[in-house]
């Protein structure tokens, strides 16, 4: 099994504004770090092929998403918290609004499968409605890699 991850962030201001400049300037390095991280499998990119900030699948122009696949929960956790990505996260409130609901969801999927954006958003909605379950969980309440997969009913 692989682990899929969706993160939704709501920017304080549009990407081109000065307040968000440091975030934009760091994207290339942060994405490169992810792709070179042990256990990285795949991440969503827009038509530019470099990043995914041009995608606003929630319909809100200030919301950007991050969708990726990893070989394990530990691989994702290592990248997120034990690389220079942590320094980026430290500044999250400079750029992103604190959402009242969960902003990140994790789920297991078969090796070789790539998650779709609609399915990922459905998982996030499921998490927000039902709390952590095998079909949609969080870093704080992880579910172990299963023998069979759970879907959002």
């Amino acid at each position, binding site marked *: 099994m692989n682990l899929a991850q969706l993160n939704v962030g709501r920017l304080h201001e549009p990407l081109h504004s000065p307040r968000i400049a440091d975030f934009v300037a760091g994207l290339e390095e942060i994405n490169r770090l992810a792709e070179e991280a042990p256990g990285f499998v795949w991440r969503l990119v827009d038509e530019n092929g470099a990043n995914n900030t041009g995608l606003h699948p929630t319909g809100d122009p200030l919301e950007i998403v991050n969708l990726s696949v990893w070989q394990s929960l530990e691989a994702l956790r290592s990248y997120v*918290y*034990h690389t*220079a990505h*942590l320094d980026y996260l*430290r500044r*999250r409130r*400079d750029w992103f609004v*604190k959402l009242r609901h969960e902003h990140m969801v994790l789920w297991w999927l078969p090796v070789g499968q790539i998650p779709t954006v609609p399915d990922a958003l459905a998982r996030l909605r499921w998490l927000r409605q039902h709390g952590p379950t095998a079909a949609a969980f969080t870093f704080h309440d992880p579910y172990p890699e299963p023998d069979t997969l759970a879907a959002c009913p």
Partner: protein
Amino acid sequence: MEPFEDAALDAVGALADPARRALYRYVAAAGSSVGRDEAAGATGLTRALAAFHLDKLVEAGLLAAGYKRLSGRVGPGAGRPAKVYHRVAGEHAVHLPPRDYPRAAELLARVVEDAGLDRELQAVARRVGESSTVDSVPLALAARGYEPDYDGGAVRLRNCPFHALARTYPPLVCGMNLALIEGLLAAAPDGPQWTARMDPHGGGCCVSLKLKTIDNTGTLSP
């Protein structure tokens, strides 16, 4: 269930003996496994006495023991693996009368996290660092339990004083920690020589420091 903090009292009680305390401090500071000969040599104890006390520290749950070939040789003739010791990851805290600050810290951290108050926390941490009385950066870091480890002009901090909270709320707590250290640098007479940055690695504190006058190759810049 044991009375409150009995396990911690047993662990800390094992350190009442000065020889044992010296051994514990030596092993903890070593950062890697320590053999009986090395520990005895460093503390001025006989090998037999050092071995006795080291094993007492293992019984108390403060150190863990393993076996390792220290000769560097392998195969027949390399000798038996030697017993080596390292500090365990578990924490022991004693408060008399009983206090439970970790639980309060966890509750407060959860609220700060949920409210998204990262920047407010960093601002307070920086101010607290800035208003500290600091003789020097190395002394200030050591006094606050960071266990600084010097490697030329770079300093790694082998211990995270906020370990449990940092594991649960990494961006929040590590951001607070960096701001606190930056504040200490601002307060220290030798602070302007140093830079601190987020530099996570396996274990220890996620912040590292560097002497500004030393570049990446370890040579002094003019």
